[in-house]
């Protein structure tokens, strides 16, 4: 599973992207694992009370999970996941 | 130990909210020409510096003031203007080496930062904390520490 990080999440993880090998059935499972891996510096931008915090954007294969099944959106080992903290406009 | 208005020009965005807060606080409307703080911007380099009275210990403005309207308060460390005694001669405007006293023709008064009696409106409104109301002995510590850590990092790499 390939995960790409943007904006402040790059600072929090010290990566722009990575090959994530631990299996995750849904986006919720994946995010819980990432929060455990990278701690509060990562979590504060996107995770609150076991839910995605407002305005954070998660894409699976280029599609916003809010247009799919939200955090229950399923993942496969070939999924490409993009995670953005709250962003901008203009 | 007293308080001081610390200026961090590297954090200044040039927004001039400080000028607006100052004029609203002192004059009740939005008139930057009556502000006691002014921001100077170099547009080519996109750099700005806010300037206000530095509350000097050996204040030139107090030294030249004939009616002793301008005088240093030893308790607060602020140079205070007693408007009732001021004769509007503008010698203080001539004397200040920083240019931080001005004369406002419209309201016929001397304009000089009074730190809003210890609760400066400019520091309150500044969106990036480029103006900070801090204890004077600790005021430079954040900056000292920031550069100290650069030195630490340089050594850590060897």
């Amino acid at each position: 599973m390939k995960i790409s990080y943007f904006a402040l999440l790059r600072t929090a993880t010290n990566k722009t992207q990575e090959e994530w090998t631990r299996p995750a059935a849904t986006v919720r499972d994946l995010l819980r694992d990432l929060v455990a891996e990278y701690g509060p510096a990562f979590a504060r931008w996107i995770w609150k009370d076991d839910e995605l915090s407002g305005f954070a954007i998660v894409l699976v294969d280029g599609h916003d999970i809010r247009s799919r099944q939200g955090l229950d959106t399923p993942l496969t080992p070939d999924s490409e996941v993009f995670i953005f903290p709250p962003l901008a406009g203009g | 130990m007293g308080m001081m208005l610390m200026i961090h020009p590297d954090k200044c965005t040039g927004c001039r909210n400080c000028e607006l807060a100052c004029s609203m606080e002192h004059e009740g409307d939005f008139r930057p020409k009556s502000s006691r703080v002014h921001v100077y911007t170099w547009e080519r380099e996109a750099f700005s510096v806010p300037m206000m009275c530095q509350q000097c210990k050996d204040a030139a403005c107090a030294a030249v003031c004939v009616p002793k309207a301008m005088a240093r308060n030893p308790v607060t460390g602020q140079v205070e203007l007693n408007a009732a005694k001021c004769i509007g001669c503008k010698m203080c405007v001539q004397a200040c080496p920083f240019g931080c006293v001005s004369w406002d023709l419209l309201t016929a008064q001397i304009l000089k930062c009074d730190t809003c009696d210890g609760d400066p409106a400019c520091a309150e409104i500044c969106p990036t904390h480029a103006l900070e109301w801090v204890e004077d002995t600790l005021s430079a510590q954040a900056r000292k520490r920031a550069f100290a850590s650069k030195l630490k990092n340089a050594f850590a790499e060897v």
Partner: protein
Amino acid sequence: MHGWMGRILRVDLTSGKIATEALNPRLARDYIGARGLGTRIMYDEVDPKVDPLSPENKLIFVAGPMTGTFAPSTGRFDVVTKGPLTGTIAASNSGGAWGPELKYAGYDVLILEGRSPKPVYLWIDNDKVAIRDAAHLWGKDVMETTEQLNAETAGDAKVACIGPAGEHMALIASIMNDMQRAAGRSGVGAVMGSKNLKAVAVRGSNAVTVADKAAFLAAVTRASTMIKEHPVGGTGLRLYGTDVLVNILNSVGGLPTGNFQDGCFATADKVGGEALAATQLQRPRGCFACIISCGRGTKVTNPKYKGEGEGPEYETAWGFGPDCRIDDLDAVTKANYLCNEYGLDTISMASTVACAMELYERGIITLKDTEGLELPFGNADAMVEAVRLTGRGEGFGRMLALGSYRMASHYGHPELSMTVKKQEMPAYDPRAVQGIGLNYATTNRGGCHVRGYTISPEILGVPVKVDKDSIDGKPELVALFQNLTAAIDSSGSCLFTTFGIGAPEYAELMTALTGVPYTADGFVAAGERIFNLERLWNLKAGLSAKDDTLPPRMLEEPIRSGPSKGAVSRLPEMLPLYYGVRGWDAEGVPTKEKLATLELA
């Protein structure tokens, strides 16, 4: 009056006559200020069929009631005129510090009429207004002009000026203020050049007053807190600037690439906000009274593209980057600096270069046409040189200065110009984001994103997430955004305050400031009134429903690759619904009933 200064300054550049008049409080109430008030004045005083570059066109600089106060991020003003690029009513919005200074000088509005027989600048020093010779400034770039004017008027004067591009009447010329901010779109710089007006310098020592101080201060505190607590308005924009959008648009396949041939670009990250922050960013900058600080103070040290200043913004980075298939951030930022120096709209400039690149790659234009400039996609040096030539009005730059529509038409291929109403579309692919496409097609100044920024809900999920590929509810959404934006644009407030506050907060600020009671609904209704007035102007100027469209590529050529592969714009389905939502007939003409409701009949 409170908020408003209550005065209009009118200058006839032909005769040199200078006069002031009172601002009608009823007009101020109904049209608010800036974009709305300027449009009302144009509607009342100028024939919509006027030639934009003739002395009969007027050029209006107009601030909003909130301009000059510390209502959060409200330092803005508009330049309103008939746009030479589009033939529509044009209102270009700008930040910086110029607008507030006009208010402090005692004026809400500056109306410039006629044409000066020789180059001049206007010097407004409170009540003292003078037209001065500008022969020594003509030909100078924006930075030199500003510095020279500060030397010969006052160190604290604020300067709005044109660069060489406006002097040459490039149809994509901007008016720059405070060196780095732009009233960019629709060719407003060419109108200023056509009047032989190089600059307006202004300094003021008056006050903007408040009707209900306690209520205003409380409203400001509330609004500021809401903006600061919003992750975008409070943090995101200050850290990364608008350029952070490159990666998000690319990731959903909606980043127009290669003159809108495609929707994603493999190396987009190299010109995104993260890359900018890591390499060129020096410090964030903010316009007058701003608490968001989205401005980018930057520097390029690479000797090939050396420079410093402000920018690039998202649209600029997109345009000189992925739209031209370029991923060299130094070249992109250099192009941005050149646009600021010469006074050019970055969106139209970049998209015009991208169009030229497509014409070149297809063999429609050759090295002979470009006078030796090799213009395939991806050639960063040529892109930068193209901007320089356009700014100077030399070589192929003379053709680029017309904008992509007239250039592409000249070579027989108008369909390769990515424009609506002859104005270049910005950095969101309408095939990948349905609502923004409807906005591009219907917004009154042509291809424009800011006037109905449905990207917020469609991509960012602000205030709530809507499906970008669906057309359900999009006509209503676009109309609502367009109405609210028209009101916000007229108040002097920056649009980025919408990352935090909404109509209720604007109404509260306006009421406390001016003493005129505004409700949330009334504020939006004023915006609807302004939008419809712009529509009436355009209809009288000769535009019609057939101009509410998108380039054929958006309707017929699916996106080639990426997550939005296969998508086209469903504009034809949305447009009739949009007319219905707006209360217009099938030809897009506002009905008598609608005009009566808006008090426009």
